[in-house]
């Protein structure tokens, strides 16, 4: 069955162990950082930082400011826009859950970056032989029967790995058990047709930098609706054009005949 991750923002302490574990497992280089307005470094996801803990200071329901630490990364959509966009099938959704990337196929057209509703895929712009880079859900670890590096590392179990439907039940259980702690919403359960990375949070998701205008219908449907008509369009256009040509050249022939008859007369 499809694996997933449940990320409980209220449990995260912002230790960024996941960020480091991800770098270590995937052998990603460190990045040159600079002081910024954000409390965290590097500032955001990049081609070399596939998971990132975002620091957000947001007032809670009582109006007191609270820190929220938001672990961000690819959502591994159930019906990923990036996969449907890729012209060469370099991106694939696997049965197990991960959306994987095959650098040997990719030609670097970057349509996946344009198509992803969460703006997740990044590009190694600094390279003359660039690749797309994003979280792989540690597909290699999963194949080996292990859980992703981030989930493995997480001290507070803010990142929980498991079966998708079990995790949804778990999330609903937590909301019911401690309603004061959570907003009543599981982000990712339905977004973009459902994703494999889901979130619980104590403050509204839009305050945490989540996109709240994400369609609940799978994105690939939008382009497939146009693409699936193509065979009919081919037949239709070719038939109409052939027919028009046939009728018109026949009419011209007949016309020419009658003209020549007239001329004779």
């Amino acid at each position, binding site marked *: 069955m499809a694996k997933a991750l449940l990320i409980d923002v209220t449990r995260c302490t912002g230790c960024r162990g996941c960020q480091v574990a991800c770098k270590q497992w995937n052998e990603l280089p460190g990045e040159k950082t600079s002081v910024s307005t954000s409390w965290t470094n590097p500032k955001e996801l*990049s*081609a070399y930082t596939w998971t990132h803990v975002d620091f957000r200071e947001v007032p809670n329901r009582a109006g007191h400011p609270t820190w929220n630490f938001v672990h961000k990364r690819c959502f591994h959509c159930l019906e990923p*826009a990036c*996969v*449907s*966009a*890729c*012209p*060469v*099938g*370099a991106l694939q959704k696997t049965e197990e859950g991960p959306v994987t990337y095959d650098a040997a*196929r*990719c*030609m*670097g*057209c*970057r*349509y996946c*970056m*344009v*198509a992803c*509703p969460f*703006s997740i895929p*990044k*590009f190694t*712009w*600094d*390279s*003359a*032989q*660039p*690749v797309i880079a994003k979280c792989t859900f540690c597909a290699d670890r999963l194949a080996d029967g292990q859980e992703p590096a981030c989930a493995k590392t997480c001290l507070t179990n803010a990142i929980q790995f498991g079966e998708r439907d079990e995790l949804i039940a778990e999330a609903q259980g937590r909301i019911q058990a401690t309603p004061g702690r959570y907003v009543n919403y599981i982000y990712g359960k339905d977004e973009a047709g459902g994703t494999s990375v889901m979130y619980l949070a104590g403050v509204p998701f839009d305050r945490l930098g989540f996109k709240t205008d994400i*369609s609940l219908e799978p*994105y*690939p449907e*939008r*382009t*497939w*609706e*146009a*693409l699936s008509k*193509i065979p009919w*369009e*081919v037949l239709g*256009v*070719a038939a109409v*054009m*052939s027919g*028009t*040509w046939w009728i*018109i*050249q026949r009419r*011209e022939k007949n016309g020419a005949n009658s003209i020549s008859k007239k001329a004779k007369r």
Partner: protein
Amino acid sequence: MKSIADPKQAEVRLNTPGTWLLVALVVVGVSVAALRLATGLGATTNLSDGVPWGLWIGFDVVAGVALAAGGFTLAAIVYIFGLEKYRPVVRPAILTAFLGYILVAVGIVLDIGRPYRIWHPIVFWQEHSVMFEVAWCVMLYLSVLALEFSSSIWEKLRLARLVNFMRMIIIPLVILGITLSTLHQSSLGSLFLITPELSPLWYTSLLPYLFFISAVGIGLAMVIFESFISAKVFKQGLEMKVLTGLARAAVFVWVGYLAIRFWNLIATGRLWDFTWNAQGALFLVETGVGMVLPVLILSIARLRNSPGWLFGAASLLIGGAVLNRLNTSLLGFPNTWQVGYFPSWMEFAVTIGLVSAALLAFKLAVKYTAVFAAYAHKPSTPGLKSAGAVVEAE
């Protein structure tokens, strides 16, 4: 070849300041392109994770394909609908389309991260991808255009057999070309169906249809525009009757386009998303100055029949169409403004170099092939005679 060149062949002087300026621009463009290939996209462009597609996709590819739409439009008008009076402009239109698509292809090659993998869609199939379909259509249509254009070369070389062979296959070829064009002109719009963050002023599920209809409209405007330029540069005669006929067709197409587009904007309530910001201004310039105004000009017979107004209106339509493609693929995205993307000088240099190369190639083709020579009308006419049948001013 010179000895048998027909005296009626268009007189083209190559040694002019204009030619040398084009050559210089091509040299600069080629050098920057080489630099881009050696050092990568990050080193030469202002693209970033926030704005992964910039000037090259927006102008060279998306606008470029639209500007090359004259080829299939005119091929349909002349070969399929049998409107013979437009035959004189069919060849220049096909040549422009051919050059335009070469430009598009080179633009894509330079824009993708790994240019040497441009052939990947041929072997790795992914038919759920709009990009996959566009890649195939562009490849196939480029081949069709090369064949269509080859007629003028065979005629020039007086290869009667090939000329006759082309005449035999021209109708199926034209129908194939029209089909492929219909598909990918609309698919370039479909590319953005999956990016609903595009401003509501441009995002609509009708994008593929709007792209197709406007492509036909742009094609007509391009042929008018080109004819004026050719008349000036190559001292070809201008047949106003032909051009005003195309202009009338353009009015119908653009009125239809605007009706569908605005009806859709109103019906879906998107028009009320209009705000007075940069995108709002772009929308007004695109639809107002680039579409409504020229359509008004062209629908008044007195103005349509005046060369100056006709040329001006066609130019406005082309500008509006280019802006429409740029807006849909680049400027209509909020990210472009948030990130503050502006193309690097190197991006401009490559784009300008590509356009210059196309202009130069057009000039060479006019000089050395029978671009401005019409096909003989009657199938019974021996192929070779047609080589000299230059269309003259009325």
